[in-house]
């Protein structure tokens, strides 16, 4: 009955592990994607995590969870990404995902004015309800369709500046600015004093070894 855990079992779930070289610092951040339905939240994540684009990305029920690791200089940053459902009815579940998040990407579709208004509402809610130090990025997605845009770049940029948000127009389809926006977030996140160690949903540091911990940059 007592099955011995296979060797290497602890790391078998994820491909992108830092190789454990001791000079590498490692951090882990919880990031949540919010925004109107069908603006491309799941597609942005898929592009960032797997480098893929599906033209018929299925609608997200509840939420999906993915991780991706990137390196900035000598720091390994692991994103735990919560990709949420966009329909208003699922709105009430959102606090479960953004509570304790250190970063959020609020997405709108540059072809859709309503989705931009919706993004503003999300930003307001995050300012009110999420962790005070949360890093928020605004992503104007579907930038490959900029010839039929409705939301002007300057308008969104100005709004972002007024609200201290990172801002980029992105295209999950072409990959434009997708890695960049995650990278920009990673750069802005604190990586040196365990400042990301707040929020109730950060897992405790268990007995595991050889893995990045939330207690940053050991």
């Amino acid at each position, binding site marked *: *009955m*007592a*099955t011995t*855990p*296979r060797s290497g*079992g*602890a790391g*078998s*779930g*994820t491909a992108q592990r830092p190789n454990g070289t001791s000079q590498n610092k490692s951090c882990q951040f919880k990031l949540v994607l919010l925004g109107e*339905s*069908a603006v491309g939240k799941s597609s942005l994540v898929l592009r960032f995590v797997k480098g893929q684009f599906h*033209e*018929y*990305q*299925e*609608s*997200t*029920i*509840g*939420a*999906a*969870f*993915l*991780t991706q690791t990137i390196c900035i200089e000598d720091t390994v940053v692991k994103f*735990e990404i919560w990709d949420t*459902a*966009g*329909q*208003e*009815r*699922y*709105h*009430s*579940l959102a*606090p*479960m995902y953004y*509570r304790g998040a250190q970063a959020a990407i609020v997405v709108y579709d540059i072809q859709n004015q*309503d989705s931009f*208004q*919706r993004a503003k*509402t999300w930003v307001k809610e995050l300012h009110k309800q999420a962790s005070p130090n949360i890093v928020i990025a605004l992503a104007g997605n579907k930038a490959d369709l900029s010839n039929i845009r409705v939301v002007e770049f300057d308008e969104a940029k100005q709004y972002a500046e007024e609200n201290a948000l990172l801002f980029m127009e992105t295209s999950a389809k072409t990959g434009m600015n997708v890695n960049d926006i995650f990278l920009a977030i990673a750069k802005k996140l604190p990586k040196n004093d365990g400042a990301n160690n707040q929020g*109730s*949903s950060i*897992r*405790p540091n*268990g*007995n*595991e070894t050889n*893995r990045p911990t939330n207690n940053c940059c050991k």
Partner: protein
Amino acid sequence: MTDGEQREALVRRAEDEREEIVKRYELGLDPTNIVDPWENPTFEIYHITDKYGFMHDSRLPTTRNSQEMQLTKIELERDKKWMKMLAKWPPPQDKLHTRVYKGIPKAVRWPAWKKLLNVDQSIANNVGVYPRMLQLAKKYSTETRQIDADVNRQFRDNLAYRERYSIKQCSLFNVLNAYSIYNSELGYCQGMACVAGVLLLFMQEEEAFWALNTLMTDQKYGMHGLFIEGFPKLTRFIDHHDRILSKIMRKLHKHFTKHNVDALLYAIKWFFVVFVERVPFSLSLRVWDIFLLDGDRVILAMAITILYLHKDELLRMKDMDAIIEYLQVKLHKNFGYSDDDAIHALERVMKKLKDLKLDAPPPAKSNEFPTRTLGDFVEADMEKKIGRRRNDYTDTEKQVITDVISRQEQNAIDVQSTVSYETSECATVTLTVPEDSHSIRSSLAGTSVASHGSSETMSLEDNNIHLKTANMLQSTPQREMLLGT
């Protein structure tokens, strides 16, 4: 512009938008219905499509092995038996039970599902209702935009839904649009496209509409309560799921608690679409067969079955992302058990839950069922017509948020107690000698985790109740089929 004029303009805009979308579906495949190139795939499909119409990444084998030949033979025999049984409906309950659990043959799923969902009766009782709802929906539904967005991405890897504005896509749009009027309290919620999409793989449009209605509003299935604002049934089922886990799979429950794996994170989609896209499609159909026969407690039992069959792997995983990825992605691609083996396990879990009186969750409250008369047309209010989002949460939603947050906080407390227990006492013992339930239980005394335990749990664990599944052992000889260890 005055406020009034502005509102009127917004209403006009919403009406125009709806009209435009409806028109596209009415044109269907008509060549004048021009779509953007990306809306229709052009890839080659003939070698990659399975028997359910789903397309895969690579070519499927062209020859079948002897086992598959054998299965086809069995299925042909079953076809005949089912045809006889369907002709003399209703059959004796035990006979029906046995046959449904063996799997309804693909060829008779259409008539069989219709019987189980009482579709022909519903149609006969509601002559003219569906066309009327459809007409009203074309003019008044406020859900058209969301439905359009979801139809455009539902099962696009299936031949039936692959082509934009294909017959099935149009049917899916119509069914959901009409239902949003028929059950105006529920409207449309993401997830319903998947449920209706599955029904339409086996039924005609109007049949699927009434089948959907039965799934939503019949006491036996009650999916209305899952999809309605505030998700009251989701909360009730998640709580019961936790209760079951804490009683019969305590180790896994503790493991999940420790790694912040809240059941809400993995079970929403399980419950909302009855395991479609979370286990292989063929297996989800087998679960649907049983769900249609025995109702919503099957969903709870299947959730437990999945965790139980995979608990060894799950217990080996040391962080949340591995666990969530396993449950969300890996099991869909490869379940690790044959469909028959998985269903045998489900059957035994159902029996076990019944023996322990855990099969039925607490009864539904009235908010899980429609309060308005179905089919009574109520014109939507101005905000809904415009499609404007509310700025504030409703009271129901506030309650959901409070509940969700208190779950998280409770979880955090449980984690704390688990961690302090592990770090202060015998962490290595827990990790290396995990199977001694007595020592775990005594070590846990005084922690909040232990307080979930009950005498029932003890007896279950002490008796080491076996789930004997010969086939399952054959396919994975190293597995131990023990519940609760």
